[in-house]
């Protein structure tokens, strides 16, 4: 499912389509959830006026947000029940704290109970996050582990769909979240990696990784690269209607017979193809790990 475009000339048709696009990247998390759900069906759970904010950030002199940077919304997608868990990348880099991660884990748990009682609901995670919020370190890590346990329990009943939809990307423990999803959707602007570029440079040195080199970063961990090497199931343009259509068609595929994270032997086989003394560049990796091989 590949709907982005190459360097074709800008025709009138392409220009009109571009101008009609409703950008996901330019929206904030709450708007994204509203735009994905059918008009009028958005209903927020634990919204700003419930004031489930971080109790830890003010103790460290950091201004909290009234929703702790996670929007949980129930509604309909294409007429079917859905729950959107959207991370706000503009607040603390989308970092997961005790409260924000608990909102996601709780929403996944409720979705599981709904599915178990015969009321299927489609869970969608909008991942724009640098991983665990360092100020809440172990508390955040502990709840991210709960998110993972909930996804693994829930994905047996219903496909869990992740979307990497913003310029922050998806890093740290939350990149594992993306890897556990039944299906993963990426934009070309997305990045997916356990360790972010600056972390690699800081820990391994600039010879290992130059975090100022955008071409290098996107060639290795960018949305297109992740799609072409089989780590994502759909690569879409930055457009709300494309995302809505993609979510519905992935949901229609149902629960995959085998989740990506269960393919342990296959990934071992792939890793064995790489010589650590001469690691491939982005295009080289696409040649040895073509996406068709995994599906």
């Amino acid at each position, binding site marked *: 499912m590949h709907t982005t475009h190459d360097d074709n000339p800008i025709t009138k048709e392409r220009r009109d389509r571009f101008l009609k696009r409703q950008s996901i990247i330019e929206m904030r998390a709450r708007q994204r959830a509203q735009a994905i759900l059918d008009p009028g069906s958005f209903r927020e759970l634990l919204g*700003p006026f419930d004031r489930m904010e971080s109790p830890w950030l003010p103790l460290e*002199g*950091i*201004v909290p947000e009234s929703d702790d*940077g996670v929007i949980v919304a129930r509604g309909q997608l294409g007429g079917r029940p859905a729950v959107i868990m959207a991370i*706000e990348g*503009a607040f603390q880099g989308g970092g997961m704290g005790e409260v924000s991660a608990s909102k996601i884990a709780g929403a996944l748990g409720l979705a599981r109970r709904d599915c178990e009682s015969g009321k299927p609901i489609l869970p969608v995670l909008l991942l724009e996050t640098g991983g665990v919020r360092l100020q809440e370190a172990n508390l955040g890590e502990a709840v991210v582990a709960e998110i993972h346990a909930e996804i693994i329990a829930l994905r047996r009943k219903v496909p869990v769909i992740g979307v990497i939809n913003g310029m922050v990307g998806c890093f740290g423990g939350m990149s594992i979240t993306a890897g556990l999803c039944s299906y993963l959707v990426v934009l070309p602007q997305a990045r997916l990696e356990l360790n972010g570029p600056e972390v690699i440079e800081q820990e391994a040195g600039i010879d290992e990784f130059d975090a100022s080199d955008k071409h290098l970063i996107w060639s290795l961990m960018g949305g297109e690269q992740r799609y072409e090497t089989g780590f994502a199931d759909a690569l879409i343009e930055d457009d709300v209607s494309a995302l809505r259509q993609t979510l519905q068609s992935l949901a229609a595929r149902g629960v995959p017979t085998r989740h990506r994270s269960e393919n342990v032997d296959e990934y071992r086989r792939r890793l064995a193809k790489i010589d650590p003394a001469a690691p491939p560049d982005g295009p080289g990796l696409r040649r040895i790990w073509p996406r068709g091989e995994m599906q």
Partner: protein
Amino acid sequence: METLNFEYEAKGSLTRRAHVGVVGSGDLEVLIEPSGKPTAEVRVRTSVDGYTQVWKDVLDRFFARFGRAARVEINDFGATPGTVTLRLEQAAEEARS
């Protein structure tokens, strides 16, 4: 982080609550809701210390015109006075509509 509190006299009241904005770089969130008290109570939490007088000037000007009883919370992440005023206007518009 600094917490500032302000209180303004009010005549009218609000029927709806509204939330706008995000606690992101150069931005702020505003929560405005009806209050049982006859005043507009404002609590500001800001990431930038030492700007009490600027906050007072911006809020004095806004609430002199707004004139309604409300409970207002502002979580600020370094917004300029212009951005603060626009977010307040946006919140007020949503709470009045």
